[in-house]
């Protein structure tokens, strides 16, 4: 039972996936433009407005709403109690909706063609920025509610370990609070005043450093729900037990700890920082691979338990014995494969000097499409398929279209991103709409881009099939609305307070942020630098 939160959660998921369907269309169209097949509307105004919309929806609108809905579901079902305040939850939701309704029209009317990473001194319509601020403030309602829910539960259950799924969920809430500091400061004190005409210039170095503060942890904010499901739902769906509950808590803590002080690896090639802090943040970025590597073993062991329980023999026999017909199991395994490819792209991006080889090339595009578009979004699908019966009370009529959709997504993602790795190494720059494919030096790029485009259309079909599945499939038998989470091999009876709360974690994050960002942000207030003149992009009639 979800304590009357069903409509709230369905509202979040509904808007998230509607926006997702729109952004998928834009993505496929952009690939057609880049492939040189001359589709309609190939003007730069249309292309870059679409890139802004695709990025804004896939980066800010869809994941934020999905994670809020996911968080409410986990909080209600694991703590077995209603949300601290349903009204505040709806208030947060409507704030996000108002923000989206303010931002997207500005983007589609071409008044905010600054891409979802803003790129000051380019300055767009103030409605775009105010809309995004409202989305963030709306999501802070969710953060408050999650922390309040866990605190309330811990008061009523002194000394007992917080259920693992809720612990990950609140870890994500704290991570998001820390994450949004950078972009909130940049928007409120630099970009919005410039957009309103109150200031004539913007300190670009400071703006980029503040945005880098947000740019990396935001991808771990997107990633955490997938990890929560790996630890607390996938093992049970496969018919096994979670290998280690404690490793789950440790991974969530390490993810929050090490994803925050590493944003400057997006600024390796920037001229406003010395090598010192770039090196420190590179060292911390290497540490952020540790929780992921711990996870692949722990979840591998959990799946091995399930596989062997179903008769899997030999070193790898358990893989075949897994119930591949169940969407959650299929999605988890596909997600790990995509995580492997995406992670490979990531450790190359982070390697200090080697970043120069592929910075701002299609290699980076391949990396984040594989990690976010692949690993995370395929788990969002699996989560939606898992939660829908609990929310609408009906089982799906058949699992075939669901499995087809998941397979098409994984295959589409691989077909789209593999050519980008090759093109990235050859120096294909990011965000270029039209190439001169008659130039012999890059003529062969068109073949690879067309392969990517085909992958894009597979993804488009899969994305639309996903929305279709949700709308039409869940008309089967009456569903058991009770949500069951995975059980650990050794359920924890008492967990050290460091792994049952976030005071130690927040303390260490504060220390790391001061060490990693203290000087790089403070320097702009005392060194002699020259802010750049605001450059408006919303002048058109």
């Amino acid at each position: 039972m979800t304590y009357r939160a069903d409509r709230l959660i369905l509202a979040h998921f509904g808007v998230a996936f509607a926006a997702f369907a729109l952004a998928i269309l834009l993505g496929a169209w952009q690939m057609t433009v880049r492939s040189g097949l001359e589709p309609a509307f190939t003007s730069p105004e249309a292309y870059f407005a679409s890139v802004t919309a695709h990025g804004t929806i896939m980066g800010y609108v869809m994941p934020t709403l999905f994670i809020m809905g996911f968080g409410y579901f986990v909080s209600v079902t694991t703590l077995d109690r209603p949300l601290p305040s349903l009204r505040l939850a709806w208030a947060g939701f409507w704030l996000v909706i108002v923000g989206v309704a303010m931002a997207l029209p500005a983007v589609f009317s071409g008044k905010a063609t600054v891409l979802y990473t803003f790129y000051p001194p380019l300055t767009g319509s103030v409605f775009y920025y105010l809309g995004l601020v409202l989305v963030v403030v709306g999501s802070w309602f969710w953060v408050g509610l999650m922390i309040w829910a866990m605190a309330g539960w811990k008061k009523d259950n002194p000394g007992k370990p917080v259920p693992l799924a809720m612990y990950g969920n609140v870890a994500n809430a704290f991570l998001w609070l820390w994450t949004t500091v950078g972009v909130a400061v940049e928007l409120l004190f630099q970009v919005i005043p410039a957009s309103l005409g109150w200031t004539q210039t913007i300190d670009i170095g400071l703006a980029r450093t503040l945005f880098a503060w947000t740019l990396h942890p935001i991808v771990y904010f997107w990633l955490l729900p997938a990890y929560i499901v790996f630890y607390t739902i996938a093992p049970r769906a496969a018919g096994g037990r979670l290998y280690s509950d404690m490793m789950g808590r440790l991974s969530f803590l390490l993810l929050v700890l090490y994803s925050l002080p590493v944003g400057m690896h997006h600024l390796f090639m920037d001229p406003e920082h010395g090598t010192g802090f770039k090196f420190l943040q590179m060292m911390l970025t290497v540490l952020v691979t540790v929780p992921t590597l711990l996870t692949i073993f722990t979840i591998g062991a959990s799946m091995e338990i399930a596989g062997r329980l179903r008769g899997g023999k030999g070193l790898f026999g358990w893989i075949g014995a897994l119930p591949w017909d169940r969407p959650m199991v299929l999605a988890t395994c596909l997600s790990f494969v995509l995580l492997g490819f995406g992670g490979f792209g990531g450790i190359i991006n982070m390697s200090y000097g080697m970043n120069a080889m592929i910075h701002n090339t299609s290699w980076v595009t391949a990396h984040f499409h594989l990690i976010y578009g692949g690993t995370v979004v395929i788990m969002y699908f699996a989560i939606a398929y898992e939660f829908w019966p609990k929310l609408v009370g009906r089982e799906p009529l058949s699992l075939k279209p669901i499995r087809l959709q998941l397979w098409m997504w994984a295959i589409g993602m691989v077909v789209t991103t593999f050519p980008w790795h090759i093109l990235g190494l050859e120096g294909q720059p990011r965000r270029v709409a039209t190439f001169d494919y008659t130039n012999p030096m890059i003529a062969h790029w068109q073949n690879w881009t067309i392969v990517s485009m085909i992958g894009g259309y597979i993804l488009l079909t899969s994305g639309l099939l996903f929305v279709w599945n949700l709308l039409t499939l869940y008309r089967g038998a009456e569903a058991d609305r009770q949500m069951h989470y995975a059980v650990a091999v050794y359920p924890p009876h008492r967990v050290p307070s460091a792994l049952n709360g976030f005071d130690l974690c927040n303390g260490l994050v504060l220390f790391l942020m001061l060490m990693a960002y203290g000087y790089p942000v403070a320097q702009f207030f005392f060194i002699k630098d020259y802010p750049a003149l605001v450059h408006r992009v919303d002048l058109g009639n």
Partner: protein
Amino acid sequence: MAPITNEQELQKTEFRWAMIVTGAVTVLFAVIGISSFVMALHPPSHVESIDPATVSQSKEFAESNLGTSVDPDGAVTVRIIATQFAFVPRCIPVPQGKPVTIRVTSPDVIHGFLIAGTNANTMVVPGYVAEVRTVFGTAGDHLMPCHEFCGLGHSEMWALVRVVPQAQWQTDADGKARCDISR
């Protein structure tokens, strides 16, 4: 491995895996650290500020001084302006096998460039002179596209770097070297 009968043994397997992960991570640290130390590799991080509004009036980035110039002591310096929607100059000759220092700035918005097939890569932020130091190993033409969104003309913003073998390398009287993009 011994069969697991209680939580300590289970945690021992996790601990063993953590040690292997530490080993792998140490390999990454070591390779990055040692190669950066031995070969003095690091991302371009030369911090030098300049007023973007008056770049067009500056002596160093005056039109006549842009492009490749060889100093009396043989050092090769390339000065480039990245402005809305063109690199100036668009054809950049550089000698093969010699260290080259590229100094680039922007008078208006954020740009960035990479030289395809090489490690030359930097962001160009208005207010800073970025400096990239590298050696071009392979002779021939390399594409140098702008790789950061700088406005509606971003897709057409590219230059050409022509790596000239040592034998054919020559400069004019005051050390300048130019090339023509059409040939």
